[in-house]
């Protein structure tokens, strides 16, 4: 504070002074002020009388806390926050606490998954729009949705319980092992979230048994059309980039487009992340190009273009295992 005032006074004093005289004055003042700023030999630093300095207590210095990770507190953040849009209310690490007579305790209730219900309602609405559900069918499907959500919550709770109060030291190999197991469990929970109403869910089972043949046919046709349109979007988008990169003629573009559309992968159409993953989509198209007849593919482009195209195709192939983790494809297919 004192130094700040000195500097301000010095600046005011300098206003209107010729440049070189100003430099002289500042130099002299620096000589006087610098020892005060650095605290001289006492090591006191920049402190005024009214400064309130809080020194960390022994044993809780930042460096030591930095290696310790509380897995229970981090569990929900790891599972939900990276899922894109899943809303977490309450739960361990969710921030909600209960104030009691003896202090503050964290609420360990199961998290409410708003997104799960919203997603289910959207899916139900689409089915209803396409198939014209009866009240009984709608009721049965809603019950199935609730059961699936409860089952998910219970499964995640079981995983979370394992880490309540568990703190690991990341500098310790044993701590790192526990952290790896924790990450595997987190991944598992994320998969459950993603596949909440997929094959194997009660919703899927009830849908299959409650719809009549006509309704099922309409639903399947719509799903197929949606998947095809999604694939077409990826193909056209990536072909624009490819066009920029290797300069396709209209004929070449048409050939590549036909090859790619004929090799439609089992794209996920439900519960896809709202945020586009352009890089993953591009790699998926290149991976698909690696699965078409390579001789025909090579014959489509010039030798100059092929050098670059082959490089892209290889990039796609190399990304296969990574792509399987990006949730672009239906789970059964991606696990193949």
């Amino acid at each position, binding site marked *: 504070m004192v130094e700040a005032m000195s500097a301000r006074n010095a600046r005011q004093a300098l206003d209107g002074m*010729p440049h*070189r*005289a100003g430099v002289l004055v500042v130099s002299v003042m620096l000589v006087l002020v610098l020892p005060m700023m650095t605290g001289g030999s006492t090591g006191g630093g920049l402190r005024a009388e009214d400064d309130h300095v809080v020194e960390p207590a022994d044993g809780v210095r930042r460096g030591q806390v930095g290696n310790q990770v509380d897995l229970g507190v981090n569990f929900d953040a790891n599972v939900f926050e990276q899922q894109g*849009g899943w809303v977490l209310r309450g739960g361990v690490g969710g921030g909600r606490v209960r104030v009691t007579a003896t202090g503050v305790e964290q609420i360990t209730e199961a998290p409410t998954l708003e997104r799960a219900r919203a997603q289910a309602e*959207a899916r139900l*609405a*689409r089915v209803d*729009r*396409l198939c014209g559900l009866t009240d009984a069918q709608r009721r049965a499907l809603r019950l199935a949705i609730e059961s699936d959500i409860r089952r998910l919550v219970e499964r995640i709770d079981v995983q979370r319980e394992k880490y309540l109060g568990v703190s690991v030291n990341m500098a310790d190999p044993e701590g790192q092992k526990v952290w790896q197991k924790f990450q595997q469990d987190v991944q598992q929970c994320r998969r459950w979230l993603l596949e909440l109403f997929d094959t194997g869910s009660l919703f899927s089972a009830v849908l299959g048994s409650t719809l009549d043949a006509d309704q099922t046919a309409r639903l399947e*046709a*719509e799903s197929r*059309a*949606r998947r095809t*349109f*999604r694939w*077409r*979007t990826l193909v*056209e*988008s990536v*072909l*624009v*980039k490819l*066009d*920029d*990169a*290797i*300069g*396709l*003629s*209209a004929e070449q*573009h048409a050939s590549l487009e036909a090859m790619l559309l004929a090799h439609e992968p089992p794209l996920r159409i439900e519960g*896809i992340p*709202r*945020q*586009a*993953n*352009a890089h993953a989509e591009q790699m998926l198209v290149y991976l698909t190009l690696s699965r078409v007849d390579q001789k025909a593919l090579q014959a489509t482009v*010039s030798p*100059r*273009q092929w*050098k*670059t195209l082959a*490089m892209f195709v290889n990039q796609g192939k190399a990304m296969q295992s990574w792509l399987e983790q990006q949730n672009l494809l239906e789970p059964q297919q991606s696990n193949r």
Partner: protein
Amino acid sequence: MAERMRQHRRQRGRPLVRAVASLFGAALFIGTVAGPPRELAAQVPAPVVPAPAVELQLDILQRALGQGLEALFTPEAARRKAQGDAAAAKAQGDAQAAQQKQQMRQIEQMLQPAVRTELEIIRQACGDLPSAVRMKLREAARQAAAQVAQEWVGRQGQRTGGTFDARALLHQRIAAAVEAAVEPEAVAAYHRESAAREMRREEAARIRIVAKVDEHLDLTAAQREAILADLRQRWQASWIRELFDNGGVVVNGQRPAPDYAAACITPHLDPKQQEAWAAWARAASGSQVNIAQGMRFDGQGLQQDDEWWKR
């Protein structure tokens, strides 16, 4: 020569010596006038100096200080300062120019894959070209890359807004060279390809608009086709911006709604979708975000030179 240098050194040192000497003299005066430090004042009796003598000493002090400062600001010193400033400014300008030149070379290098792609497009569309024409076009492509690199560097650090599409600029310049150097039939073929490429880009942008709406509002197949048809019918060039939305832009937690094309979308939505659309457009209006703004160049292109152009 040695004598001149000595004289020069003497002249250069003189104002500073005078200034220091004057200030030193002033300090001596301060010592005699002001007397001992405050803590000793109680012990040491103050010197008895008559009032007119004090005034005289102060006057001498004032003059000495004035001379000291004056010595620092002689016309000669000012001239040397100006010379020094000019030299520093020139050195700074030279360094900047060298840096810009270096940047231009780097960008020109970075543009080479795109230049090769442009040449490939010409080769594919125009077929066999005479050697002289090939040389002309190759040189035109080289110049185009240099010009675009120069514009690129010129734009850096400027808040000019708008879009800088390096690939489009390259294409424009090279296309002009094709028009000037190539036979009319070949030029027509080249333009046909360029037009087809532009149409493909537009169709891709339309499909992306529909896909985005579909992801948000769960359209039926019939709705998707109806919106796509409407977009084709009332297409506007600026809507190509949808090609540049790679998911990186998020407004209020959502991707920008393509509300600039609302007239082609909303008539095909059911009442519930209309509501959801209105909320989406309110929260994340795509009209308010120019996704295409800024420098646009992904660096992709053909990796190796085509020897055909050198023959």
